[in-house]
């Protein structure tokens, strides 16, 4: 076993080797760029073929869209990142989701004054379907969630909060931390929650429960019912449609957009 090089000489040698390696690395990168160009062209051709066969299906079939998205996730690409991407241009995936984004924004805006900017995925789904009309393509809840994830980057406070068996969609820049989320999840069962329920289910002190509920009241996401038997109840208008459906009236729609 020979002694490993130590001392100034060995260090200098090593630095030289590193520099040479990096230089080689530059050359390699340029080569690779050229190689990539070629591969890209070939890939593009194959994708065009794939697209011509499956474009219709992507547009019409929510199941297929999910599989397609999963495939992209496996590869490590985001087909919705840009409207200028292959996926968008050839498969038309982009347009479908970006337009859906517009419809989601409009529905949330129209209902914000009523629910404070929180809406269940179900209600959002129903309202969007209504807006799209009878002859539009079917849209699944998975589609909505993906579109919403993309909308987050616009800074408007779009968020997805898991509650019970579904999701609440937030569309206003209000801060909702874990405490708020957990209370929302608790309220999901009946559409409302009380301080006692929070204390017994989550084992919090009254003060903590009250702070959370007051924040939700301030944001307009919860309404206070002081006339309930027993103690005051905090209702979530976002969950009202679970109890009875409501339509957006033309007045509400007009009021939403200045």
């Amino acid at each position, binding site marked *: 076993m020979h002694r490993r090089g130590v001392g100034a000489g060995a260090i200098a040698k090593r630095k030289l080797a590193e520099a040479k390696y990096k230089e080689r690395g530059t050359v390699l990168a340029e080569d690779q760029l050229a190689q*990539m160009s070629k591969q890209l062209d070939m890939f593009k051709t194959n994708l065009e073929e794939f697209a011509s066969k499956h474009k219709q299906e992507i547009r019409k079939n929510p199941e297929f869209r999910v599989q397609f998205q999963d495939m992209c996730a496996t590869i490590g690409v985001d087909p919705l990142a*840009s409207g200028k991407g292959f996926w968008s241009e050839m498969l038309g995936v982009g347009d479908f989701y970006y337009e859906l984004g517009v419809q989601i924004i409009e529905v949330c805006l129209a209902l914000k004054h009523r629910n404070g900017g929180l809406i269940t995925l179900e209600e959002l789904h129903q309202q969007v379907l209504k807006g799209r009309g009878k002859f539009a393509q079917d849209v699944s809840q998975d589609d909505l969630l993906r579109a919403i994830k993309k909308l987050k980057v616009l800074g408007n406070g779009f968020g997805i909060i898991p509650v019970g068996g579904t999701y609440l969609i937030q569309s206003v820049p209000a801060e909702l931390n874990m405490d708020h989320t957990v209370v929302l999840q608790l309220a999901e069962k009946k559409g409302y929650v009380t301080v006692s329920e929070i204390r017994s289910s989550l084992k919090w002190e009254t003060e903590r429960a009250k702070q959370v509920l007051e924040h939700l009241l301030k944001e307009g996401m919860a309404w206070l019912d002081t006339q309930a038997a027993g103690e005051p109840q905090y209702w979530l208008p976002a969950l009202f449609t679970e109890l009875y459906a409501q339509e957006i009236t033309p007045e509400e729609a007009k009021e939403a957009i200045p």
Partner: protein
Amino acid sequence: MDRFSWTSGLLELGETLVVQQRGVRLCDGEEKVKFDMGVLLLSTHRLIWRDQKNHECCFAVPLSQIVFIEEQAAGIGKSAKIVVHLHPASSNKEPGPFQSSKYSYIKLSFKEHGEIEFYRRLSEEITQRRWENMPTGQTIQVNKDPQAGRIRAVGIVGIERKLEEKRKETDKNISEAKEMVELSKSIANKIKEKQGDITEDETIRFKSYLLSMGIANPVTRETHGSGTHYHMQLAKQLAGILQTPLEERGGIMSLTEVYCLVNRARGLELLSPEDLVNACKMLESLKLPLRLRIFDSGVMVIELQSHNEEEMVASALETVSEKGSLTADEFAKLVGMSVLLAKERLLLAEKMGHLCRDDSVEGLRFYPNLFLTQS
């Protein structure tokens, strides 16, 4: 832990396995129990735990018993955990490892990682509630008619073959795409290490490739930000399209408004939200007459260069003073702005010291800051 029932671990008819993870320990609420090394399986219907050493020791809880789940991040010496809150056990529940428990939740501790994926899958299953559509334990209807059986078989075989073809094709695409992505990533890393050895032009060209593929761009350059030629063009287009609408709306619009406006106008070849943001980030450096502004709250707006939000604050102060006090909603209605932007303006006025807030359950109300003016 008293919600679990013993099981053979075999899946029922109609039940499918979603994901499984080794190295999971169970806790009854905050207390450790003897089940400290097992395989956790998630099916469409149940959450199943099986001891890694003793396979006979296997129990499960139906997903319908789950109220909600939370994540607990890993810490020093602690694994990441999922906390599962459960409904009380039903009276006719099959016997399990525990008769009673003082907790209504359990903790799953992932000692060999896998928590993130498991949480994602579990959330999905709880949302989709597939167990409602696929009741288990039903027997298959045996078709008595041999003729019909034959035709159906051919049909099914035909479909299966098509599915197989499709899958092969997809697999081919996946493997090609994977190669491409690996290559892109290695180049991206090289560029990151040696900023300056690859020319500006090549970097931009490369970024276009990444953009086409939908790969997140790890390379950033000061001059162009995360933009490409495409985004530069887009920025210039936006300056043209948005001039008039901005003037009509008092010189300022939120990015979501811009997104809707532009995409409704385009009809086809819509912009992704990311495209819009990347283009807007370049507005200032390209010396266009609009700019992107980000408020403290994270709200993003486009303003005309000629628009001065600080000046608008002065007129906002006047309006509030006239009325004594105003909420964001009231202010928005008076001035004819969206509530979102009205709130931002009032918050800015507060930040500059002109307004004071009154924060109560009745809402957020702003008053002229008399502390400042009347001392």
